């Protein structure tokens, strides 16, 4: 389909690449295409680019370069941290996580359960905040990993990571505290050590970088068994030829993100506020987490008596791209496990849509989107 005036408000799913990232990616493929593990001039060029990028990325997150391993994306990083410690583990260790994690964590945890491992899931309140006391209660002397996302990808609601990380350690200092920060990187400045996070999953394409590149941050205090087996790339931690152009693109995207952080955040917040206010004035809606701390780019809205599947299709036909729950292979979208965990009543669970803004959101987009949404909802009602 060709549409020139299509408005994309699905940045939480993925973002368009920033120009600097595209440029860096293309450059790397042109001039540093060799295998970074090779022994010749062109390989050295690739290796140098890889390590320069790693240095910058590490410093951006307040980490040491040796604590950064490049993966194929956030999902691989989550799988690695959640599963690897338990593979062939003979002792009765457990995993503690929440019911509202991204599928990369949840499905990994469910897989562990099928392998006989104990997993405990903390619930959340009606705003989507995970119950700290319940989370901590589930952590015990046998807990190997505690995993809690920094902010939810469907609602944008931010968890009290720093506080929880600290309390988890008080409970049992051996626990590795993992956080999927994939959704948060685009609207928060994160320093992993300051936050008390031992490991984190980051995805390149959520911040204007390329798809197929991600980061597994692991504090130097910990070691994890390898998850991929093969050649001794990535400091012997992850097999497979390193995606140097992806890494270069990710570093460039992060740099541009850093340079424009305040301006972009201000613009996104402003557009979201206009959007939400217009909707509130014209329609019967509820905004998830409106009164609490949530990421600036996500607006999850419940439209009273509107089937969000029909609304999403109607908006698409009018040139506005948004999303509902998590997409499955066929394209049909299921009611969100996050909303179910928040105890949203059955009758309302299919009335939510997620609008997510991003680095290329322009002034006026919030107003324009609100007009389309208001008109469409009125037609559907």
């Amino acid at each position: 389909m060709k549409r020139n005036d299509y408005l994309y408000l699905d940045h939480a799913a993925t973002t368009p690449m920033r120009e600097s990232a595209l440029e860096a990616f293309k450059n790397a493929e042109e001039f540093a295409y060799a295998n970074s593990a090779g022994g010749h001039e062109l390989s050295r060029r690739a290796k140098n680019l890889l390590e320069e990028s790693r240095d910058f990325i590490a410093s951006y997150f307040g980490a040491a370069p040796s604590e950064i391993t490049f993966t194929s994306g956030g999902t691989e990083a989550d799988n690695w941290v959640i599963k690897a410690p338990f593979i062939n583990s003979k002792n009765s260790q457990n995993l503690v996580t929440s019911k509202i994690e991204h599928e990369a964590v949840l499905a990994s945890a469910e897989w562990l359960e099928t392998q006989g491992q104990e997993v405990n899931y903390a619930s959340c309140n009606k705003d989507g905040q995970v119950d700290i006391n319940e989370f901590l209660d589930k952590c015990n002397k046998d807990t190997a990993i505690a995993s809690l996302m920094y902010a939810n990808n469907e609602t944008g609601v931010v968890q009290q990571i720093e506080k929880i990380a600290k309390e988890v350690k008080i409970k049992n200092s051996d626990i590795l505290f993992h956080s999927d920060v994939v959704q948060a990187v685009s609207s928060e400045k994160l320093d992993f050590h300051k936050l008390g996070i031992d490991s984190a999953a980051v995805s390149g394409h959520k911040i204007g970088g390329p798809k197929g590149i991600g980061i597994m941050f692991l504090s130097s205090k910990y070691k994890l068994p390898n998850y991929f087996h093969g050649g001794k790339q990535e400091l012997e931690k992850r097999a497979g030829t390193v995606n140097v152009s992806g890494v270069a693109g990710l570093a460039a995207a992060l740099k541009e993100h850093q340079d424009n952080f305040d301006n972009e955040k201000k613009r996104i917040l402003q557009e979201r506020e206009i959007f939400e206010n217009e909707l509130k004035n014209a329609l019967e809606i509820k905004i998830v987490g409106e009164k609490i701390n949530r990421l600036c780019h996500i607006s999850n809205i419940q439209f009273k008596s509107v089937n969000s599947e029909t609304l999403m299709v109607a908006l698409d036909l009018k040139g506005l791209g948004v999303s509902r729950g998590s997409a499955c292979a066929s394209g049909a979208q299921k009611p969100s496990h996050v909303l179910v965990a928040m105890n949203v009543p059955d009758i309302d669970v299919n009335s939510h849509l997620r609008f997510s803004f991003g680095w290329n959101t322009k002034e006026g987009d919030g107003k324009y989107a609100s007009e389309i949404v208001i008109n469409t909802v009125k037609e559907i009602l």
Partner: protein
Amino acid sequence: MRILVAMSGGVDSSVVAGLLKSQGHDVIGVTMKLWEGPNGEMPETGCCTAADSEDARKVAAKLDIPYYVLDYTASFSENVIDNFVDMYSQGLTPNPCVECNRSVKFDHFIDQAKKLNCEKVATGHYAKIVRSNNSLELHKADYLEKDQSYVLHMLTADKLPKIDFPLGTISKPEVRQIAASLGLKTAFKKDSQDICFVGKKDYRNFVSSRIDFSSSGDIVDKDDNIIGTHEGVHEFTVGQRKGIPGGQGQPKYVTKIDVENNKVFIGSKADLTTKNFIIEDVSFVNGEEYENLSIQTRYNSHDIPCKLKKIDSSTYEIELDQATLGVAPGQFGVIYNDTKLIGGGRISSKILENVNE
């Protein structure tokens, strides 16, 4: 005009989308996800599989039309699957495709089309909507071999202006030719015959996986003499021959299923013939008609001349001109005047025995 096309991923609905697009309409393709596995995945066998929706998506991409998979699973489960299991548990022979058209496809789909500013919905059914004087009528397809008007009998005249059946005047070979000339990958795809949610599996396993029918009971002849035992009435349908004990000399058939007393009656072919029966939940496309009628008692069966007698507003008695085999309670009796579909209803079990000779 903007038209919402139901695309199953088969050749028929692919061609519908292609024809309407080539006529200049603003076409939107939709696959209804009716049935799913425990993790929300689309089924792998039967129709409406993940591979089918992938075919539909490719056809839509080729035609450059918007395409969506929409979730109809809740409505389908409630109206079709529960009903399917329930009917078997009552000793009836359900027709899930009719039930699906009746309570899921058209109602829900037309409603959704309206919300998406579509003036009409179109499907790949072989049936014809014909304008006669000032009203629209539902007719058999010109290509009788594939006629599907039987499964559409519950449509009423008020819905017809919102529906388009573009294949009503086209033959199946022509449909395949059109698909090939449009370069659609479904051109030579095999037609699906299975019940979509049962697939190639035996429906009995499906039913018994949903309800416990394990109570065994007697198989009896028409004079109530015990001939054998059964492992649950859901394993039988009226007219069935397979799996029946005895049968020396002449073949035996299931003639009646008595759920209340957990009995399966068997008899000879002659015991299976029916001349009078009742149809319930009857609806008419354009209103009642009593002249020159014939009836189909199963999908794609031949027309049998009949007379229609009203019992009450939704219950009618059918008198066939000639007794016939295989009138199964739970199936639908669909009444025609030549090619024009008059109406239809579900064949009743209760009254069948009283009117049966």
